[in-house]
């Protein structure tokens, strides 16, 4: 008890004496924990809105789109199927809004929401017989199209008739991914309404959902359904695809954050060890005094552990709170569930353990301080370092020489300082690399597989007219006819998007990373996602079925594929049979450099009398904009860590030189020169650390970003290193800030009149 009281006094006094440093430590740990929690939340399945939605809607695992109404009883009888949703009639219509046209699947659902796969209404109400013009729109589609409750919902059926409906409700479903990643958009209407909009049954499809007792048995059930329905199947989607499409953004972000978080944790551990170690060194006299007063070795160590450990734990606590908060913001209060207790506990315990280990070592050293306070602290070994000899050789000013000498007198702290600055700097450089990559996405979309800035759909115009109009536009360099089709994958269990674009003679300018572009009929290129999905390599042949026609394609190259998780197969339109290829569904337009795509769009719309449908291609970087916020936040946290290291380094430098200061002044150095000596001592280490960090970061960043590209399906080859100017500015800012931070205590010490030797 007596020890506890005495230790508590000391801890309180010490914390009061260094509030700023203590706060910095708490902030750094809190920042790291926040990053880790956020990344874990984003990475964890539970944040994927799919799981929540699937549970809420009692969703179906498999959705089958067929030509004629299939027999639900037959499907329900398949082994493993526990329930059937539908069949529902679904008609392709076009939503015209603000001059834009978007394809929509208008699906007939009954007034009473079905038991299985019932959409959950978020706003407004469900369909009602009293309001036959009311439709319920899927939420992501409503958001992307700017539809609100009561908005007019003007659709054009395939036969060209226009119908003005109105949005009565907005609902969510787990049967398809979010718009625009997943098209077409989805809207529900009553069967009577659908019959009015699209009377021709032959022009609509039938959609049926199967709920399984074991989600893992999806493949078997799908095979069973394919055998049963055979030719009638148009498209099949499974819960895995829906889930994957919903998680794309979160995953990439989560990976990035996890990377920053883990390396940040290492950096923080180093920083804490360094800060506590430095603190212990500067306080060794006090520990000696305390021991002479009767504190044992263990008690000194315990005291240090409690003081610094509790700061770390406070940081962990603050980080947990911040993490929850940030996650809530990041998920936009959406369908994501909060992080489950296990990973949260793992992060909290893990970080706390790292903090305690980082604190324990210096604390142990503090406990071993000999109890004779009169004995001066170990004087630094004063041999002239190589740096100093070099400095002498080139006749640098004395302050610089002395500073350079001091920098390396204590090898371990010098190393820790350098390392402690280098690690955050490395991470900052990697962050800048991510930034540069995003910039490159935006400024050079052609380098990430988005050569075309505009997509033109002929709409009601014949293909020849559309081509004539496009060719006539002065802003267009090239255009490629294309068609997107669904290709049934080899085992016929699901479909992959296939893009027929360009011709073998005039291929679409893909960014081919491995292999080569397609140049003949029967050759194709694919994104990383597709290669992983089908487990094929470049040079392999794949057999797919497009519109009932078997097609054998040889994959000759891997391209950067930002769409659909990279699960896209691309080939020349001439590889398709004529019935599937003509007329082209759309034209991809490459705009002349320097010409605004919006201008071309307006011109084309005007020239065609609004008959062409012209859409701008969505750049993937626009979806990833939040990464920039993350990068900025992490740079701040890392800068804090570096700063903590630096403060320690300069405090240590001061302590080591306290004895010298009087001598230096006696030798005739002005206060300014004394300050310069001290600043140089830390400055040399900082410069080495910063430069090492930047070099390491620059060499690692491409690899890491490409790895992320690979995992997200886009594929390696997207990474761009930050420009030399950016790096130079980063180095200068870091070194400048470091010197400023080192200057304040140095000036104070240099001006102090009291001989610091006797504290």
């Amino acid at each position, binding site marked *: 008890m*007596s020890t506890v009281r*005495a230790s508590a006094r000391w801890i309180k*006094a010490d914390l009061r*004496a260094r509030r700023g440093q203590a706060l910095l430590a708490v902030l750094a740990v809190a920042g790291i924990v926040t990053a880790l929690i956020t990344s874990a939340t984003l990475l964890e399945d539970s944040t994927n809105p799919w799981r929540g939605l699937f549970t809420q809607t009692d969703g179906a695992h498999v959705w089958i789109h067929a030509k004629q109404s299939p027999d639900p009883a037959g499907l329900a009888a398949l082994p493993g199927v526990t329930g059937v949703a539908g069949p529902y009639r679904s008609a392709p219509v076009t939503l015209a809004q603000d001059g834009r046209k978007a394809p929509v699947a208008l699906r007939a659902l009954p007034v009473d929401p079905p038991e299985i796969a019932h959409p959950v209404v978020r706003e407004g109400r469900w369909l009602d017989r009293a309001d036959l013009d009311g439709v319920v729109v899927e939420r992501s589609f409503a958001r992307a199209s700017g539809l609100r409750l009561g908005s007019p919902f003007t659709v054009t059926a395939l036969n060209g008739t226009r119908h003005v409906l109105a949005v009565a409700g907005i609902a969510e479903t787990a049967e398809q991914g979010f718009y625009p990643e997943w098209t077409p958009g989805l809207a529900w209407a009553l069967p009577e309404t659908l019959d009015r909009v699209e009377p021709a049954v032959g022009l609509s499809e039938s959609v049926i959902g199967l709920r399984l007792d074991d989600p893992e048995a999806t493949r078997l059930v799908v095979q069973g359904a394919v055998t049963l329905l055979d030719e009638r199947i148009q498209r099949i989607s499974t819960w895995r695809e829906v889930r994957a499409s919903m998680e794309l953004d979160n995953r990439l972000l989560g990976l990035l954050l996890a990377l920053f978080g883990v390396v940040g944790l290492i950096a923080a551990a180093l920083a804490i060890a360094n800060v506590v170690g430095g603190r212990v060194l500067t306080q060794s006299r*006090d520990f000696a005094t305390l021991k*002479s007063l*009767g504190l044992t070795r263990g008690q000194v160590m315990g005291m240090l552990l409690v003081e610094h450990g509790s700061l770390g734990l406070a940081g962990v606590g603050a980080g947990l709170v911040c993490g929850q908060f940030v996650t809530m913001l990041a998920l936009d209060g959406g369908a994501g569930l909060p992080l489950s207790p296990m990973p949260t506990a793992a992060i909290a315990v893990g970080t706390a353990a790292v903090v305690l280990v980082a604190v324990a070592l210096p604390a142990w050293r503090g406990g071993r301080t000999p109890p004779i306070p009169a004995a001066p602290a170990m004087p630094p070994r004063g041999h002239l370092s190589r740096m100093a000899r070099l400095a002498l050789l080139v006749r640098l000013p004395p302050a610089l020489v002395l500073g350079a000498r001091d920098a390396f007198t204590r090898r371990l702290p010098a190393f820790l300082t350098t390392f402690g600055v280098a690690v955050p700097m490395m991470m900052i450089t990697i962050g800048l690399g991510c930034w540069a990559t995003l910039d490159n996405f935006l400024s050079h979309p052609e380098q990430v597989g988005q050569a075309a800035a505009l997509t033109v759909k002929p709409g009601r115009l014949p293909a020849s007219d559309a081509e004539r109009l496009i060719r006539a536009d002065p802003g267009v360099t090239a255009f490629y006819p294309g068609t997107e089709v669904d290709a049934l994958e080899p085992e016929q269990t699901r479909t992959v998007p296939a893009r027929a674009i360009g011709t073998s003679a005039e291929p679409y300018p893909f960014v081919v990373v491995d292999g080569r572009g397609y140049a003949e009929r029967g050759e194709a290129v694919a994104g990383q996602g597709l290669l992983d999905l089908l487990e094929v390599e470049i040079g392999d042949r794949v057999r797919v079925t497009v519109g009932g026609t078997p097609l054998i394609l040889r994959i000759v190259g891997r391209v950067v594929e930002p769409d659909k998780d990279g699960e896209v197969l691309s080939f020349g339109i001439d590889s398709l049979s004529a019935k599937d290829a003509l007329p082209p569904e759309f034209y991809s337009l490459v705009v002349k450099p320097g010409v605004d795509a919006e201008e071309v769009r307006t011109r084309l719309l005007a020239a065609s009398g609004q008959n062409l449908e012209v859409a701008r291609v969505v750049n993937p970087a626009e979806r990833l904009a939040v990464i920039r916020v993350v990068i900025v936040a992490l740079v701040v946290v890392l800068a804090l860590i570096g700063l903590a290291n630096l403060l320690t380094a300069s405090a240590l430098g001061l302590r080591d030189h306290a004895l010298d200061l009087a001598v230096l002044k006696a030798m005739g150095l002005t206060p300014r020169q004394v300050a310069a000596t001290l600043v140089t001592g830390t400055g040399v280490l900082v410069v080495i650390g910063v430069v090492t960090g930047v070099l390491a970061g620059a060499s690692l960043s491409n690899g890491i970003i490409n790895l992320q590209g690979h995992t997200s399906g886009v594929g390696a080859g997207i990474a761009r290193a930050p420009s030399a100017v950016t790096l130079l500015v980063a180095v200068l800012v870091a070194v400048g800030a470091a010197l400023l931070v080192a200057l304040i205590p140095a000036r104070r010490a240099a001006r102090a009149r009291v001989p610091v030797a006797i504290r």
Partner: protein
Amino acid sequence: MTPKQLSTVIKTVNLGKIYQQGAVPVPAVRGVDLEIGAGEFVAVTGPSGSGKSTLVHMLGGLDKPSSGEIWLDGRRVDTLRESAWALLRRKKIGFVFQFFNLVANMTVADNVELPALLAGSSPKEARARREYLLDALGLTERSDAPPSQLSGGEQQRVALARALSNRPSLLLADEPTGNLDSRNTRDVLRLLGEVHRDGQTIVLVTHEARVASLADRVVSLLDGQVIDDGTIAVPRRRSRGGAGDVVELR
């Protein structure tokens, strides 16, 4: 009042300390036999390097002897481990150092209360003891100041208050005036004389004969060995006390 009549506070038997300097053993203290009774005021003098500080550090357990025995209050203590020594110091020993060695982060009041708390006093008792000591040393109004704002003399007075805060049976003072001007030296010595009159056993290390002359008994060391151990019998001075001592000292 001769030492033999008093109960022995600390006793050393053939105490020795050898430092290793590289491969060369350097003896600092050689075969010191010393017996100090309760209430005695002993000055240990000698030129620098004669082993005075080492001796007093060993008496307080800050340094481990290489040979010999130390008995404190009738108990052999040289065999104790570092932590056992620490626990012993809390109750029985107070230290005053040449460079004051106040804990820099703590206020004067906290510095003085710390040993009392360690010795097991309640916060209330520690506070009362601190108020009494600081009042006696004329430092009451500085009790909330950090040590760095105090003059050298004030710091040493605080250090003395701290050393007395746990009511030690033995007060060890290692060159307490070595860093002070003559006026502060006078003050500190007056205080030491006062606590001695209250019955405090004191071992004072000094190289100044003038300071040593304040003690009852002077032990002279040279090259680590006791060359002289004599009692100064000046009963007149003790009985009168007060400022007169100082006047005579000058």
